[in-house]
């Protein structure tokens, strides 16, 4: 949710002009901004993967306890890997 607000902030600063974009970029590239960026991207991927788990459960797939645990740990790890890949290329 906060990440989407930040995405909106980026778009709005793009529309308002270069001075506003400079402010956005200063906050984003600060240490706190970078830490928050990584945390938000990880949370986004983790939420996405868990959402897919829930959608599969809704259609009755993977709802046995070992599978639930397995996909849960997999979601954490895949989210970590995807976050690493994204910041490697960004």
């Amino acid at each position, binding site marked *: *949710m906060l990440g*989407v*607000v930040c*995405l*909106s902030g*980026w*778009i*709005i600063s*793009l*529309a*308002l002009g*270069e001075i506003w*974009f400079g402010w956005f*970029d200063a906050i*984003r*590239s600060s240490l706190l901004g970078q830490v928050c960026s990584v945390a938000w*991207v990880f949370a*986004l*991927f983790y939420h*996405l993967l868990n*959402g*897919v788990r*829930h*959608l599969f459960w*809704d259609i009755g797939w993977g709802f046995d306890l070992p599978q639930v645990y397995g996909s849960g740990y997999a979601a954490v790890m895949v989210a970590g890997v*995807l976050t690493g890949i*994204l910041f490697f*290329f*960004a």
Partner: protein
Amino acid sequence: MKSASQHWWLQRVSAVVLIPLVGWIAIFVLGRMSADYEGARVWLGQPLNGGLMIVSLFVLYWHARLGLQVIAEDYVANSVRRRRLLLGVNGIVLFWIAAAVVAVCAIMRF
């Protein structure tokens, strides 16, 4: 349809729609948020990119609103406080979605 089952369906539909949209944001949008003001404006000004961004914003905020509503309904027992909280959530979501969509339109126009 009853509002609870409608909420359930809208939540699932928005979740399924967001799978490809979040993929698009992760691959094409997040990397563009670092520097290059002009490049980002030109990119977002393309009809396909701007259009996908407007759709993404609507579905993202809609999905977020549905989720925050569930949190309020599950954890705020007092019905007056719950209603005020949900009104506040609706107001904040409406403000950000309007501002962001107007901004995309402005970038696409100029």
